[in-house]
């Protein structure tokens, strides 16, 4: 019995139209591979990276501004060259991707949880609760994400004792980006909840006597996740970009533990000087990562939309 269960579960995945459309869509496959690859690289950076750019004792400023290994004056030690502080660009990218992805994923999950919770409640309970939540959403919408992030960061730096900044700045960032994103989820989830809650399977559950919370959790939530996943993917890309933009506005992660965005911001200052590698390589990595994620989200949107099939 159990065994056959497992079997059918696998069959379900591989038999599903989603899987079919995936295997028949090279773009989706490639971008999936790229994304996974980068995530892998980021997670295992400590083992993959030739150096640890975050360990200050190990970096020597005398290695600063070395060009990539293959060009004149390059050092095979630093495949993609070094930045002004003597950190290997390759290693910094790996560790940077780590931070970018951490910030990206965490903030997406954050806004997802908040958004879904509020959306479900708003849609299922309705009435005043709904009105209240949606008004709050409206107000927040009249306040662009980038500004919210700016202010949140500003406040955090104000209220948190300054000697902790370096340690918590990344969480602040996650919160700042996350809090500005929940509205989209809330609205979507609310919309689909309004549809689902009138479907007969929900009424059936209510006739049985199942309590609202359980209904939301067991019945409605799984059925509204589709669009949420699509938003989440796109949002991940946006979150990573936002992080980069924020670091341009000077509220990013500390330069001693740079993210991809911070690397680009730093490299920005070297665009005119000869040291192109300091910007270009992180830049390429960021584009590839975000592009892959976006393409993935694209495919998912079309694949999950029954009307498009």
């Amino acid at each position, binding site marked *: 019995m159990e065994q056959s*269960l497992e079997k059918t579960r696998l069959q379900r995945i591989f038999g599903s139209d989603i899987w079919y459309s995936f295997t028949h869509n090279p773009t989706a496959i490639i971008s999936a591979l790229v994304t996974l690859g980068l995530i892998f690289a980021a997670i295992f950076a400590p083992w993959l990276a030739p150096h640890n750019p975050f360990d200050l004792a190990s970096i020597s400023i005398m290695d600063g501004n070395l060009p990539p290994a293959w060009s004149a004056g390059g050092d095979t030690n630093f495949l993609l060259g070094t930045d002004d502080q003597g950190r290997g660009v390759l290693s910094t990218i790996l560790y940077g991707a780590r931070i970018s992805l951490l910030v990206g994923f965490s903030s997406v999950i954050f806004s997802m949880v908040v958004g879904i919770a509020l959306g479900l409640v708003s849609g299922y309970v309705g009435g005043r609760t709904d009105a209240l939540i949606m008004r709050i959403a409206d107000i927040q919408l009249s306040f662009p994400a980038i500004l919210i992030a700016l202010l949140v960061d500003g406040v955090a730096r104000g209220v948190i004792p300054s000697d902790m900044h370096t340690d918590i700045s990344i969480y602040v960032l996650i919160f700042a980006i996350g809090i500005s994103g929940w509205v989209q989820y809330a609205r979507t989830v609310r919309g689909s909840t309004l549809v689902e809650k009138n479907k007969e399977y929900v009424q*059936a559950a209510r006739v*049985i*006597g*199942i309590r609202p919370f359980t209904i939301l959790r067991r019945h409605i939530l*799984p059925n509204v996740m589709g669009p949420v996943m699509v938003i989440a993917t796109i949002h991940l890309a946006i979150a990573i970009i936002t992080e980069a933009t924020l670091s341009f506005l000077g509220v990013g992660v500390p330069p001693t533990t740079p993210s991809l965005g911070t690397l680009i911001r730093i490299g920005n200052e070297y665009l005119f000087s000869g040291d192109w590698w300091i910007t270009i390589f992180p830049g390429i990595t960021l584009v590839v990562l975000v592009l892959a994620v976006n393409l993935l989200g694209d495919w998912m949107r079309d694949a999950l939309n029954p009307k498009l099939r």
Partner: protein
Amino acid sequence: MDLLNINNLRIEFPSRHGTVIAVDDVTLTVQPGEVLGVVGESGAGKSTIGNAVIGLLEPPGEMTGGHVFLKEQGIDTLSPEAKRKIRGRKIGMIFQDPLTSLDPLQTIEQQLVETINLHLKLGEKKSQARAVDLLRQVGIPDPENRIKNYPHQFSGGMRQRVVIALALCAEPEVIIADEPTTALDVSIQAQILELMRRLCKDKKVGMLIITHDMGVIADITDRVAVMYRGKLVEEGTTAKILGNPDHPYTQSLISAVPRPDVRLKRFPMVNYIEAEGERKKLLDLSTHWLGKARDYKAVQGPFISLKNLVMTFVTKPALLKHNRVTFNAVDDVSFDINEGEVFGLVGESGSGKSTVARMICSLYRPAAGEVNFLGTDLTKIKSEKERDYYRRQMQMIFQDPFSSLNGRMRVMDIIAEPIRFHKLAGSNREVEQIVTDLLDHVGLGAQAAVRFPHEFSGGQRQRISIARALATRPRFLICDEPTSALDVSIQAQILNLLKDLQEELGLTMLFISHDLPVIRQMCDRVGVMKQGKLVEVSATEDLFENPKAAYTRELLDLMPRLDSLSLEGLEVENT
């Protein structure tokens, strides 16, 4: 010569599960002024024919054989542009759902004039005049003003008339109507059919009408073509097909049609399409779990009695009470249901019959009135815990088998949920045992438990929801249009199943339907509702033989006549 000649038509849908042959070597002809009915159940490929004729096959479908001739002229071979010129000009099309067939952002005048001008090049003025005239022909009152309106300002029936006007506006020679009345109430349906028949006769238009509804066939067609799984199984005059069909499929189809005139014991030979599956008949309730733990206290007085129920909906919300606009979906409804009987509730859409059901099982809280179940007024109960005791004893079966099951759960979990919630089984293994029992009890194998709803057909799903409803061992079952989304033969199976269960378990039932024949087959007593009010309650046979209320009479008159239906091999219940 034939007006329309469909010759050895073959249509294929290539898919990843292999090529599906939607239409297989079908030949049909339509003469001027003739109405040809194409009847068949879902998946028979009847709509595909219609789309193929006007050259609007949904991709990836393609014509891989045969031809379509309009007055000897092959039109399937024409260029897309030429095909386009034929559409609307020579062949008009009417779709099922009038609510979605019209562009919501344009007045019907714009849409009419646009089409008329396109085909007849009359110029603005003349086109408008013709548009108004058309609306008059299709029976829209005060067309001069109504023409300025937007679709959403018309009722469903009126919209369908507008759609017909649009289909007619370029004087086509052939009209293809795809389920033209399925979305409409029976009273409207009769009018629309009458209208279509008249137009077709007056204008000598050939009509191809695609439907699953024997009533429609009986009402307006001259000839009928029966389709099954893409094949044309039988063709002949309407009387012949209904009277004494040759093909076994046609026979089973006919025998499955609920009859307005007599009441049958069961629907026989309905297993042509989907084997009904073995059911453990006549189980011994003293030993079987369904019998056990039926610790119900005996009922004194009526089993259920509704007193002056009122349900109010807010149509225009507002902060202040007095500017809210409300209407009474259910208005002062009272009736009793006795233990062991099947009580029917009939009425057109919006008559409030479903609302009543939902108030009984406390999905809605009544604005006023009492719901007395076993002598307790459920509306007074405050705590959920207390209510659970009654919930367990009354369960509901819903209309749409596709949305009434949570697609993300396995059948096992779906049926087990009520058992677990009401703690009706000790161990998990017992739960599984019960679920398996239930499944073959409703004629599905135990293996169904590990699968997901989307792997089942509509009929099978309805069986699953019945199993779920039975899982709490209820004594009262509410069936809200349980079969109206199903094909007739499947409907017959489900109705049989419900009949059997009702007998075996001595269930009391509230059976809701808009379909009078079905009501006649199922119910002991019937209540008729109109715009939230209960107009009549009487024993089924009385209701059909000598209705009291005028409205009931009206309804009965509008019922499609199926007198020509053959009676052979059916055992009539003599009351």
